[in-house]
């Protein structure tokens, strides 16, 4: 029996390659139909329609009100596909909206309520679409920790944020990357202040709002209005949130869980790096399983483990060597890795 921490991905992970992911992998047809019913009732295109579309549309599939639901369902489907006879899930965490998925995988929300929460919050964010996000690395391509560089970039963020009419803040601490969020003035000021690196960064994230910043306070308030604390139950698995706090089964205050999920989680920095660090240090699993959709979160998980000095890893080469020897990460978005942890269709 292997132990594993489950990691649920956030926005931006259902892309062209993921089209048809639910059709290929979702293990429970009736549950998917239930999600579709919720969507129909809201007058939204169903997941089956979106996932079954003949072609991927950036404009349609990455909208918050569609992407959140697709990603949530893909995540939950992957979770349900894990071979639990041979893998013991010891804790669950997630990145950004992956927190809503984590709540459902960990049992604090039912599958349907989790869908309701994800879909509602994704829809609210799309409706208001306040501000935007960009991503920029503070480690090089060797992934070696560079705390001075990180501190310098965050000082720049503070400096920009202090200017009149500029809003900019750390949205997500994402391993070796900083996801920054703010208004157009703040984001543009950062983009013009830093050097382009790795031919991609700084990179704007399309259809994303200024998640996890104070700019989202109206969305949080709206969410609290629409989503009752009664939806939340005791988790069945330990949950690690975006501050690195652990919500223990049987010992969690469900009102506090609701309050965090639709409060600080929405308006404060999401520290995914800390969540992964706590997952490693407090649960010491054999494996970190990153559910689909997508494969892009693996780098951030590996970088977070490197930043935590986990098992003495100091950079990308150490991680690769270890991963080749005894895999530490299993990304369900990759067929070969999926086969090592799932009980079903691809193994």
């Amino acid at each position, binding site marked *: 029996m292997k132990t594993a921490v489950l990691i649920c991905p956030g926005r931006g992970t259902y892309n062209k390659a993921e089209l048809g992911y639910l059709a290929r992998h979702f293990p429970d047809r009736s549950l998917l139909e239930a999600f579709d019913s919720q969507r129909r009732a809201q007058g939204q295109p169903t997941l089956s329609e979106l996932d079954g579309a003949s072609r991927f549309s950036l404009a349609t599939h990455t909208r918050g009100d569609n992407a959140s639901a697709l990603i949530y369902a893909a995540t939950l489907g992957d979770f349900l596909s894990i071979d639990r006879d041979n893998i013991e899930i010891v804790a669950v965490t997630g990145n950004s909206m992956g927190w809503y998925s984590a709540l459902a995988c960990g049992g604090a929300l039912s599958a349907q309520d989790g869908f309701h929460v994800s879909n509602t919050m994704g829809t609210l964010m799309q409706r208001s679409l306040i501000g935007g996000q960009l991503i920029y690395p503070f480690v090089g391509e060797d992934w070696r920790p560079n705390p001075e560089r990180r501190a310098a970039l965050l000082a720049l963020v503070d400096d920009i944020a202090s200017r009149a009419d500029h809003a900019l803040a750390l949205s997500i601490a994402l391993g070796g990357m900083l996801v920054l969020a703010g208004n157009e003035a703040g984001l543009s000021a950062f983009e013009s202040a830093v050097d382009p690196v790795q031919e991609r960064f700084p990179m704007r994230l399309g259809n994303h709002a200024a998640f996890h910043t104070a700019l989202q306070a109206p969305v949080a308030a709206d969410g609290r209005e629409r989503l009752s604390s009664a939806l939340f139950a005791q988790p069945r698995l330990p949950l690690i949130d975006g501050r690195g706090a652990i919500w223990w089964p*049987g010992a969690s205050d469900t009102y506090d869980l609701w309050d965090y999920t639709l409060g600080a989680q929405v308006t404060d920095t999401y520290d995914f790096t800390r969540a992964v660090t706590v997952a490693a240090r407090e649960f010491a699993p054999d494996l970190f399983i990153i559910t689909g959709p997508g494969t892009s979160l693996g780098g951030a998980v590996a970088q977070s483990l490197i930043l935590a000095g986990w098992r003495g890893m100091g950079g990308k080469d150490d991680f690769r060597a270890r991963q080749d020897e005894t895999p530490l990460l299993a990304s369900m978005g990759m067929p070969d890795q999926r086969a090592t942890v799932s009980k079903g269709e691809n193994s």
Partner: protein
Amino acid sequence: MQAAGQGYYTIGSSGHEGMAAVAAALRPTDMAFLHYRDAAFQIQRAEQVPGQSIAWDMLLSFACSSDDPISGGRHKVLGSKALNIPPQTSTIASHLPKAVGAAYSLGLARRHPPEHKALPDDAIIMCSFGDASANHSTAQGAFNTAQWTAYQSVPMPLLFVCEDNGIGISTKTPKGWIGANFADRPGLKYFPCDGLDIYDTFRVASQAADYVRKRRRPAFLHVRTVRLYGHAGADMPTTYMKREEVEAEEANDPLLHSARLLSEAGALDTADALAIYEQTNARVERVADEVVTRPRLKSAKDVMASLIPPPRACKPSNGPTAEARAAAFASDLKAMQEPQIMSRLINWALTDLMLTHGEIALMGEDVGRKGGVYGVTQKLMSRFGPSRVIDTLLDEQSILGLGIGLAHNGFLPIPEIQFLAYLHNAEDQLRGEAATLPFFSNGQYTNPMIVRIAGLGYQKGFGGHFHNDNSVAVLRDIPGLILACPSSGSDAAMMLRECVRLAREEQRLVVFLEPIALYPMRDLHEAGDGGWMTRYPDPSERIGFGEVGRHGDGEDLVILTFANGFYLSCQAQKRLEAEGINARVVDIRWLSPLPEDAILDAISGCRNVLVVDETRRTGGLGEALMTLLTERTDLPHTRLSAEDSFIATGPAYAATMPSTDGIVEAARKLSGAAS
């Protein structure tokens, strides 16, 4: 881990799990000075602060890994910067006086918020200890001080928590003793609870915390616990307790009681409780397997890296305005134009320092209304008010504890020990508490302060041993402690300023030893010459740490000395000069750590070295100076030290210590022998 040789000395918390309920009743901003059996308290507090990795952190501590986030792998302590738990070993309840001081600091910080204030105004302080260590005189002194303070309605928001497991190693606490002792003390409200019942403990601890927080008065929470698996290490309780007694204790395991209570409440059935227990065991084993791979300290340099705390950034100050100085000093400003005695110059230096740094507070016996038994702190209470110049009760442990505790909340305390001989009953507060704090916390916690002590011999008309103690041995071997000792008024003012800088900016623990006999000294060679009075140096002038003083530039002989010895040697120097022996007198000033290079530099070019040491021959400063000279020079050297004796009252008051005649004679012999 221990069985595999990967875990080191620790002391168990089993049986004291009810302390988790006490933690739950408090806020993580309530600074907690913990008993060594309080792992459950720290684990629960970690639940109150997001992002903690408490299993990892504690196991790193058990493994003595340099990654251990509190002590850096140096020592088994409970503690956490993020959780407001300063570390200490707490073996003999010597952490209680500083808890009293920290509690006092909360009220003071409301009125005079210091730059480095660490605690919110509505915080309370918690300290815990066992039933056995509650008997310790240090603990009793702390209870008494808290009560004495609260009795006068001075705020003292302090929660004492006695974890009563009924036994201290092998000696049982008399049945009912803690309750009988503490139920009816003046100024201290008593709250008993059953630590085996987490509901009762949480309910009563919440009431006690609420009382302390709202009333700003101390309370005594008496928690019944059991001790499981013996005292510590290899202790086998069956060697001094009947087997049935040990088994009865084990049957009272708080974990079993908690599982029963949760089951009765319908919150957790026993199968689920067992599952949590087994999952937790497995989890901790997995974490332990990772932790033992983490690095450990290896060298002396590694171990010693946190003896001296890191510097901290302080706001710059231009000092007080001319108006503020004029208002504070009044007629003293005019007197500053003339040479004055040492006690006045120290008073003025303190005044300037207190005007410049609002976080300085003075405390001690008779320092306020009376202005000190030698007048050194005269007028300071009227200049700065009774909240910054505190007349304490007669208990040196409490005075030092008050200083240490104030420093935990960002103040810069200047406690006074009235006479050096009175330090000895309290010196563990410096040795075991103040000096060890950076060491145990890897420099994360500090308690910078300047302890002023009036001491050394040669008072003609006063005292005897207890007012003329000449032993500084206990202050010289404390790692990290700086011992400064001036010999003149201007040196005293400039050194005191440097000591304040060292404490304030470099977070150092400093003892400023003031030679009593030189406080009023006016003349050097003959009556009326005014040779030992000095002008008050400009407030910008300091004597740097390790900078020695030098009188004369003779090369026949150098006299290496300090304090009264420097005074006497300057007298001798003149007589020697008349005899054709050109001597140089070097004032060491900084007695610990010895400024070795500066001393060697100051004696260079001299042909002989005479050490004049007014502390005792055994354990005195002379031993270290002779060692230095032997190890690092080829110069002929000898010493004149005080005898291994106590100081007499009456005409023989100075008979056991170096005299001017004795110095002249020794100098003659040394330089003659070498010529």
